[in-house]
């Protein structure tokens, strides 16, 4: 197999995962700030849920990074 393609695959995995997570966390953080400005008394509850959803959003690109690292260093390296 052409080893160059493995690096392209790793780059795609990390890049596309980061793209999706960036959009997701951006939307999430923006809405969180809006909600916190609107109703500051809800901040503790909102923060818990913020972290919960951030963890959910974060999971997919993290998995992609892990797999990409495996592909780049263990398969190709």
């Amino acid at each position, binding site marked *: 197999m052409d080893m160059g393609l493995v690096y392209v695959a790793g780059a795609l995995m990390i890049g596309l995962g980061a793209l999706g997570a960036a959009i997701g966390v951006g939307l999430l953080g923006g809405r969180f700030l809006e909600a916190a400005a609107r109703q500051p008394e809800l901040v503790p*509850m909102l923060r818990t849920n913020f972290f919960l959803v951030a963890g959910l959003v974060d999971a997919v690109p993290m*998995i992609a990074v892990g797999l990409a*690292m495996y592909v780049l260093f263990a398969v190709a*390296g």
Partner: protein
Amino acid sequence: MASESSITTSSYIKHHLQNLTFGEKQVETSPGIWTPTGDWGFATTSEEAAKMGFWAINVDTMLLSIILGVLMMWFFRSVAKTISTGVPSPVQNFAEMMIEFVNDTVRGSFSGGKNDLVAPLALTIFVWVFLMNLMDLIPVDILPLAVAQGAALFGADPHHVFFKVVPSTDPNATMGMALVVFGLMLYYSFKIKGAGGFLGELAFEPFGKMALPINLVLETVTLLAKPFSLGLRLFGNMYAGEMVFILIATMYGASLFMGSLAGVLQIGWAIFHILIITLQAFIFMVLTVVYIDMAHQHH
């Protein structure tokens, strides 16, 4: 391991990602063809471990997760036995903090009426998953090296002793827990809604009676995706985190500059990882509670 001269980055990573597998020993009789020998023992290569099949067991995962589970139960039991209504001891404060935190979370996300199982289950999952994830923060070479040296005392070749420290980087452990949660979801669905109610939910939603096959396919996929994503999310996060730690560890041998850079990176990643391990344990707990709650809801 580190003392081996012919070691490469790739073999180091693969060595660290291989479980200590016990099963029926296999011999490569000709290239690509493995035959069982009939003896039982530990696999000495990853290929052999992969060929051991269904009855192989990952000893390191089982051992560490059971040790951590017993540790957790011992901790809560010892607190419960010495509990006082006066000035609480620091240990009691710590245990009460965790119990109150879990209690608040369960009260916030569970609305299915009285259920004595959910809160203890949530506490168990949270603490146990957290402890298993916490093994990630131990420097990657310490425990594998100790186990390999220990095995060398019993006559094993230390280069062929594998040890994967973090139980939650083994999909067997995380998917096993997700399966238990799935079992509970099915149990409560049948118990609360009855077989008819549960199957009716699968068959007649979301599009009504006319589109029964489509409903059945959609709802079955939704149902199966829950435990699958639950287990895979925890596994993927911990696997990725462990992978980064291993890669940082490979930098130590490169040069003085790379080594000191690796030190900074390892501390940074470990601090960031404290957030991830807690968050993933919390998410696993909350999603378990939410899924069981959904099994209680009538539609």
